[in-house]
C-alpha cells in the first residue's frame, strides 16, 4: 500500500514527476505522469498584435521554437490571405526539417543513447552524454555535430539558432544565395553518414532490449499525422489523417481548421498537461498517438530513397500494420532524421529555392485562422482569433506532446506493472519508467504551453492515494 514518486524525471525536455500506486496486495495498480509547470500563453497572448505571435509563441519552447513559429506564421498567412512565393515555402520547409533533425538528434544522442550504450541497469552517474564523451567519443561527437548541422541551417536561413526571427507572415525574411546554399550542401554527405551509422547502431542493439520492446507502451491506439496529397510523410503542410491500430482509416483529408470537430481536450486535477482525445470516441477511449511513430504508421511512404528503404523494414515489424510498440519511437525518429537530411538536400537543389522569398502585405482579411504543422513530437495547432486590426482576441494551442498525454500515461502504467516490484524497488526499474517517457521524447516545457513542467520524482502511493514513500533515488 504505497506510492512511489520519481521527481524530477531527468533526461527529458521539461518538468515532470511520476507517481506509482501500489494496491493492498503490493501490486502496481496505477502509474501517472504529472506535468508540473504552467506558463499560460493562451491567456497572455491576448491583446498582442498578430505579427508578434511567431516570436512570442516560439518562446513556449527552446527545443522546437521553429515549429511554433511555423504554425504561427501559417496562421498569420491565412489572416492576411497571402500565400508565400515558392522560395518562401521551400525555405520554411528546410528550416522546419532542420529543426526536426536537431531535435531528434538531441533526443537520440544526448538524452536516450546512454540507455542503449550502458543498459537500463547501468549506474545513474554513467547514464549521460558526458560519460559518452569519455567512453564513446566519436559517437558523442557525431551526435553533437549532427545537431549542430540542423542548428546551423536554422541560423543561416532564419537568423538565429533558437527563437529565430526570420520566419515571418508571408514567407521568410531572407532570400538564399547560391554560395550559401553550396556551403550547406557540402555538409550533407557527412550528415547522411552519421544518420546511417546511428540507424545501424540502433538496429544491431535491438536484440538486447526485447523485454523493453515488448512492454514499453505496447497497446492499441489511434494514430494521427499530417500527410501530403500522395499520402506521404509531410511536416510542413498537408491534411490530417487518423487511423486505428489495425491500419483502418477513420478520417482523412481533414483540413486543420476543422480540428475541433475531431479533437477534444480533457483536464485532470493531477497534471498541468491537458489530455486531448479523439472526439467521436470520447474521453478517455479516444486515445491517440502522434509523433515519429504515428507519422510512419500513417504515411504510405517517406518520399526519399534512403528513408523509404528503411521504412520497408520498419513497416515489416508488424507485417504492414501499424507498429504499436512505443519503444520504436526511437527507431522511427532515426528514420525521420535520415529523411530530413535527404529532403533538405532535395529542397536546397531545387532552383526555385533561390528566388524571392517574401510576399509582403499588411491588411487583415480574416479574423480566425488555424496554423498546423508536424513538430518533432507530433501535430501542433495554433488557433487564433483577431479583431479587424489584427489584435489577438483568443488563442488555443494544442501542443505536439500534449496529444500523447493519454498514451504516455498508459505506457508508464504498463512499464511500472512489468518492472516495478513494490517490495524491492530497483534503480533499473525506475529508470525504465523514465525511459518509457523518453520514447515519446516529451517536450514538456512547450506542452503546457505551454502550460507547464513535468518534474520527475517517483512517488509510491497507497490505494487512498496517500504518499507512502518518495524515491529521490540517492
Amino acid at each position, binding site marked *: 500500500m504505497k506510492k512511489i514518486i520519481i521527481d524530477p524525471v*531527468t533526461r527529458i525536455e521539461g518538468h515532470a514527476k511520476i507517481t506509482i500506486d501500489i494496491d493492498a496486495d503490493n501490486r502496481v495498480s496505477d502509474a501517472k505522469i504529472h506535468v508540473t509547470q504552467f506558463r*499560460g500563453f493562451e491567456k497572455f497572448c491576448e491583446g498582442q498584435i498578430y505579427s508578434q505571435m511567431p516570436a512570442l509563441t516560439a518562446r513556449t519552447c527552446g527545443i522546437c521554437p521553429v515549429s511554433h513559429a511555423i504554425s504561427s506564421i501559417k496562421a498569420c498567412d491565412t489572416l492576411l490571405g497571402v500565400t508565400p512565393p515558392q522560395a518562401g515555402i521551400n525555405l520554411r520547409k528546410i528550416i522546419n526539417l532542420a529543426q526536426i533533425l536537431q531535435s531528434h538528434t538531441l533526443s537520440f544522442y544526448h538524452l536516450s543513447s546512454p540507455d542503449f550504450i550502458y543498459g537500463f541497469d547501468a549506474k545513474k552517474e554513467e547514464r549521460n552524454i558526458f560519460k559518452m564523451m569519455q567512453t564513446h567519443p566519436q559517437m558523442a561527437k557525431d551526435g553533437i555535430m549532427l545537431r549542430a548541422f540542423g542548428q546551423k541551417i536554422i541560423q543561416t536561413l532564419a537568423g538565429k*539558432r533558437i527563437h529565430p526571427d526570420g520566419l515571418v507572415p508571408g514567407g521568410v525574411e531572407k532570400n538564399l544565395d547560391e554560395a550559401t546554399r553550396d556551403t550547406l550542401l557540402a555538409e550533407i554527405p557527412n550528415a547522411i553518414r552519421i544518420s546511417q551509422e546511428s540507424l545501424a547502431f540502433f538496429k544491431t542493439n535491438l536484440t538486447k532490449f526485447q523485454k523493453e520492446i515488448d512492454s514499453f507502451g505496447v497497446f492499441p491506439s489511434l494514430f494521427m499525422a499530417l500527410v501530403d496529397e500522395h499520402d506521404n510523410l509531410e511536416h510542413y503542410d498537408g491534411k490530417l489523417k487518423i487511423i486505428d491500430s489495425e491500419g483502418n482509416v477513420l478520417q482523412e483529408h481533414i483540413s486543420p481548421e476543422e480540428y475541433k470537430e475531431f479533437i477534444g*481536450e480533457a*483536464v485532470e486535477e493531477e497534471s*498541468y498537461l491537458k489530455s486531448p482525445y479523439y472526439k467521436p470516441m470520447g474521453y478517455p477511449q479516444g486515445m491517440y498517438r502522434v509523433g515519429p511513430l504515428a507519422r510512419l504508421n500513417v504515411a504510405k511512404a517517406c518520399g526519399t530513397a534512403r528513408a523509404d528503404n528503411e521504412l520497408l523494414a520498419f513497416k515489416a515489424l508488424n507485417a504492414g500494420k501499424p507498429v504499436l510498440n512505443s519503444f520504436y519511437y526511437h527507431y522511427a525518429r532515426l528514420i525521420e532524421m535520415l529523411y530530413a537530411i535527404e529532403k533538405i538536400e532535395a529542397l536546397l537543389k531545387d532552383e526555385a529555392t533561390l528566388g524571392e522569398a517574401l510576399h509582403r502585405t499588411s491588411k487583415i482579411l480574416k479574423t480566425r485562422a488555424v496554423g498546423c504543422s508536424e513538430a518533432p513530437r507530433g501535430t501542433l495547432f495554433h488557433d487564433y482569433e483577431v479583431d479587424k486590426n489584427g489584435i489577438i482576441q483568443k488563442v488555443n494551442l494544442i501542443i505536439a506532446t500534449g496529444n500523447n498525454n493519454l498514451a504516455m500515461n498508459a505506457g508508464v502504467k504498463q512499464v511500472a506493472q512489468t518492472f516495478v516490484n513494490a517490495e524491492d524497488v530497483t534503480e533499473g526499474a525506475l529508470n525504465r519508467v523514465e525511459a518509457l517517457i523518453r520514447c515519446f521524447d516529451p517536450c514538456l516545457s*512547450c506542452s503546457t504551453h505551454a502550460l507547464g513542467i513535468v518534474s520527475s520524482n517517483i512517488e509510491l502511493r497507497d490505494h487512498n492515494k496517500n504518499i507512502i514513500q518518495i524515491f529521490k533515488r540517492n
Partner: protein
Amino acid sequence: MKKIRLATIWLDGCSGCHMSILDMDEKLIEIAEYVDVVYSPYVDTKEFPSDVDLTIVEGALSTDHDIKMIKKIRANSKYILGLGDCAITGNISAMKNLFGSEAVLQRSYGELADTNASGVYPSKIVPKLLDKVLPLHEVIKVDYFLPGCPTPSDAIYAMLRSLIEGKEINISDYTRFGK
C-alpha cells in the same frame, strides 16, 4: 586540477537557454574536461547536491516549488549564474503577471477544455502557482547575470572559460537583452 562542480537547472523557462548551452557544439567537449556536471536535466541525479561550485539557473520563479528549490540551490552553491532574460527580469515567463494566475488558469482549463469533469484546475500533486512570477534576484542573491533570449552560446562559453581561468571578462561584449 580540481574540476568545477557544475549544476544547471531550468525553472520557469522554455529550455531555450539550456539549448544554448548545447549550442557550444564541440566546445562542450572542451568544457567537459574542466567541469563535473553534478546536477542537470542532462544527467540522472535527482537530489540537488550539497557542495556545488556554480549553479546555472534558467527561468523565473513561478511556483512554490521553484521558491523552495532556489533557496536550496542558494544554500548549496558557491556561485549562482542567472542564465537568460527569464531568470534576470521574468521576461516571457512573467507575462502572465499581466492577468494574474486565476485568469490564466481559467482560460486554459475552464474555457479551453472540452472535458473537465471536476470543474477545477490542476491542483493535486502539481505545485501551486505564485500570484506573481518573480526574477531570481527578488528571492536570492545572484552572483552573475548573463542576459539574452536565449543567452548566446558564445557568451556562455566565454563566461565558463573565464571562471575556469579565473579571469574577468566584460559580458556586455557578448550579450544583449531580448536578443
